[in-house]
């Protein structure tokens, strides 16, 4: 989660959802018509042992945090938000669904004892129930897990682990200020698999000083782990990070977008050859079942509740939706919940133009693409040109969907602008 919270309107102290996302009698006899059958929960764990130089996420090391919001009390606070969430969704007529995905991210969730993660998961299960075959993921650092801890996670109900591998090359890891030993990754993957967990690896390309050869080594190392899911992200130097300061001082050079494009093509080639297919701009999976269902819910505009400091949530009904976000600091977050108040800091109500814009913006990123019927008339007139320019798949367009070509994936933002003109 990005720490820079958007500007929004205030949220009622009890966190009540606006009436307009409440399914009404007019929508028909089925009270849940227009309500996505899926409900996801994101849990943000805002703690790390060390902060990496490129990281702008809402996370704190023990020394940064100071007193007042200790890691040991985090689970109890998060459970309080889950209870509040259950109440708020019920009151808005949007509860009553079992949770189909849970994603615990950070931060480094695995700096918490497994018992704490299990407590939060139990609370979620107790509030809504878990759908059969629910996907329960946690992020983890390769050096913060052991065979035992992974076994405990599986026993607690987790089905999937996503390791922050980032690179297999020591000097690249050093620039990123990642502390793990690259040799630890294949081991951690093996332990996770042995524990019965699905495994995903996260990679970062375009780090200052990373050669094309370095990047190939990293991708090949990930492939050698024989995982079923890989995410690869271009490094973005976010303002306010230590890395941004290093760029400003001339210690590091900004990533070159052309170099990143070449590296994107390389990772796509290597993963495809290894039997993984892209299903979102930055994500590859061995089979459609291996795709991260929680993340797909973001791109498909489903409902999810974000638990934790700075976490974002989204609830929508047809062309009406609301996004809100929690206060950023763990201490403020804990304080709100301790006094029975909603931790939400602000929200924005999305009307139909916003919802439609988001639908194009997000829908076009995934392999299934976007139904051309969702585009405006002027957006549809741009399709032919985008096919001619090699940015959209021609065959898919004829079949009524906007699906990015590989060049189109690299220019996805330009495609979205053209489709939403």
């Amino acid at each position, binding site marked *: 989660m*990005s720490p820079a919270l958007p500007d929004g309107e205030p949220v009622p102290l009890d966190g009540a959802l606006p009436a307009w996302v409440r399914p009404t009698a007019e929508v028909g006899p089925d009270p849940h018509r227009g309500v996505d059958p899926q409900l996801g929960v994101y849990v943000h764990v805002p703690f790390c042992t060390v902060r990496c130089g490129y990281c702008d996420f809402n996370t704190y090391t023990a020394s940064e945090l100071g007193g007042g919001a200790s890691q040991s009390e985090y689970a109890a606070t998060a459970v309080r938000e889950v209870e509040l969430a259950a109440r708020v969704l019920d009151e808005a007529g949007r509860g009553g669904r079992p949770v189909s995905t849970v994603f615990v991210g950070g931060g480094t969730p695995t700096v918490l004892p497994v018992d704490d993660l299990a407590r939060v998961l139990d609370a979620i299960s107790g509030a809504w129930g878990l759908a059969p075959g629910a996907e329960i993921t946690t992020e983890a650092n390769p050096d913060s897990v052991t065979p035992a801890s992974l076994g405990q996670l599986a026993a607690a109900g987790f089905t999937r682990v996503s390791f922050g591998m980032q690179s297999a090359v020591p000097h690249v890891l050093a620039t990123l200020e990642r502390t793990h030993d690259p040799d630890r990754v294949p081991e951690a993957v093996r332990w996770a698999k042995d524990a019965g967990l699905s495994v995903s690896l996260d990679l970062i390309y375009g780090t200052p000083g990373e050669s094309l050869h370095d990047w190939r080594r990293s991708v090949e190392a990930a492939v050698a782990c024989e995982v079923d899911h890989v995410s690869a992200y271009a490094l973005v130097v976010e303002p306010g990070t230590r890395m941004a300061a290093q760029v400003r001082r001339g210690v590091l050079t900004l990533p070159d977008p052309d170099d990143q494009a070449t590296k994107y093509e390389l990772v796509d080639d290597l993963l495809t050859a290894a039997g993984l297919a892209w299903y979102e701009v930055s994500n590859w999976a061995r089979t459609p079942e291996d795709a991260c269902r929680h993340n797909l819910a973001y791109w498909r505009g489903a409902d999810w509740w974000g638990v934790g400091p700075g976490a974002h949530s989204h609830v929508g009904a047809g062309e009406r939706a609301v996004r809100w976000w929690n206060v950023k600091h763990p201490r403020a977050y804990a304080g709100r919940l301790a006094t029975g108040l909603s931790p939400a800091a602000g929200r924005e109500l999305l009307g139909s133009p916003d919802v439609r814009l*988001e639908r194009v913006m997000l829908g076009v990123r995934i392999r299934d693409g976007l139904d051309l019927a969702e585009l405006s008339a002027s957006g549809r007139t741009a399709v032919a040109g985008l096919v001619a320019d090699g940015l959209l798949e021609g065959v898919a367009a004829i079949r009524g969907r906007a699906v990015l070509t590989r060049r189109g994936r690299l220019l996805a933002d330009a495609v979205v602008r053209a489709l939403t003109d």
Partner: protein
Amino acid sequence: MVHLSPTATTCEPPRAWSEPPLSPIPSAALNARIQPAATPPELLRNFCIIAHIDHGKSTLADRMLQLTGVVDDRAMRAQYLDRMDIERERGITIKSQAVRMPWGVTGPTGEVAAYALNMIDTPGHVDFTYEVSRSLAACEGAVLLVDAAQGIEAQTLANLYLAMENDLQIIPVLNKIDLPAAQPEKYAEEIAGLVGGDPADVLRVSGKTGAGVLELLDRIVELVPAPQGDAAAPARAMIFDSVYDSYRGVVTYVRVVDGHLSPREKIVMMSTRATHELLEIGVISPEPSPTKGLGVGEVGYLITGVKDVRQSKVGDTVTNASKPAASALAEYHDPRPMVFSGLYPLDGSDYPVLRDALDKLKLNDAALVYEPETSVALGFGFRVGFLGLLHLEIVRERLEREFDLALISTAPNVVYEVTMEDRGVITVTNPSEFPGGKIAEVREPVVKATILCPSEFIGSVMELCQTRRGDLQGMDYLSAERVEMRYMLPLAEIVFDFFDQLKSKTRGYASLDYEPVGEQAAALVKVDILLQGEQVDAFSAIVHKDKAYAYGVMMAGKLKDLIPRQQFEVPIQAAIGARVIARETIRAMRKDVLAKCYGGDISRKRKLLEKQKEGKKRMKTIGRVDVPQEAFIAALSSDDSGKDAKAKK
């Protein structure tokens, strides 16, 4: 220029001419002898001040206004005469005006003689040569004012020549003698060498401290000849300035040569034969004050109720309708625009505002001409003709400042006469009108340029003039260290950044003056700039064929840096007709995607997208290429080309 509007709140209300606050005239009887419409010509002195920008003319004028009692200290505003903001900020005077001041000269026996002095302010810049010549024609004497730390400059020299040609009595004065850097001996020598006489006769003053100004006023009375004219003849008055005022209509400044003009009588403009009633006639001292008329040798203003300065043209002769004069004082010339530029509003919806603004400025500026034009790149705008570069700059600045417009101006160009092989002649004021097909000859305006500079820079100046197709006509040493160089130059070569280059090559010491002297045939071609095969009209230029390649390379290179990468490759070509002379390529953009887009990124990303879409609306699309407006502005500005030229050196 005088505003008759009540907005000049810092001034006292206009007071009668007979009640000066601190009059230099000791008695009412004496004062009666110099009343407007009743002053014998022998008690009048009409003079102007010739000076370079920054040499302190306005400050000196301020001191004179104080010493003659027409402005008291409290009402004194620095540079009282320069009313417009731009003039005040730049320290230059754009429009001339005339102020009547009483002055008493004490004779050897201690008795005081009263005189009325008319100080006629002249524009200091070459763009306004015609106006300068008319204001000089209204005077019998000229104060040549030179900065004692800088010496005479080329523009001053040009105006001095004009004054001497008009037989004006020259009173040389060194100003700013209070400055530590002043070198009065050295420059007195230089001036005496130019105007004749003894260096000791060059007066030394300080407009700032007031030192020497009393002596200067006495010297004016002593040396400037009294005006002469036939009081019994039909009136003949020369218009030397004409200003539009939103409350009173056009205010016309005249110098009466013969006869008498009276309030309420009918007058005739001799060039147009148009008849007007004199609603008001008066003098400025320093606020306008109505009088019983104006007689021989007097200087003042007329109001007839006309609304457009074109109905009251500088250089025209005014006469009585009942008893018209047989011949005008001088032949009247319409001002001729020499430099053209396209002016476009940054925001296309401001086009009507720009049109109204130009219509308003035109009321006050007889030299301003314009007509609508359309540019593929810049949208709707106007092609505007100017007297010269300063005129262009002033008009542009007034449009931006007084009408709150944001404007793009295209690179200035001159007027070309193109003769086709079938003998048809086309006048080109915009490079995009330059014809294709068989051209027999292209003619361009040429100017005679005078450059004054320290002799150590002769080499660099010659080098610059040669690259601008200049032809050296002659060179004279004004002193051991200062030289005057005379060049014939195509006007087109100096309208774009010549002066900046001259200044930078001479560390700011050179000064320039030029006057049009006709036209010449030249090997000129039009270079077009094409973006993905589409011509971008705003960047077409008419250049000498030897420079076409350099222009093409420079412009293509500039655009390559300024236009953002697109999803496809964009070739930029410079071409003469169908022949491509330079080419650059903007490589296709390869990556334009936010790699991560999860829950918390979505609001941020949607807002970014909305912003990008807003930005796209402000882009101009040439063919399929989106070009930000800033790229056009940057490409049209001279800054980079100046840097390039320096880099090549």
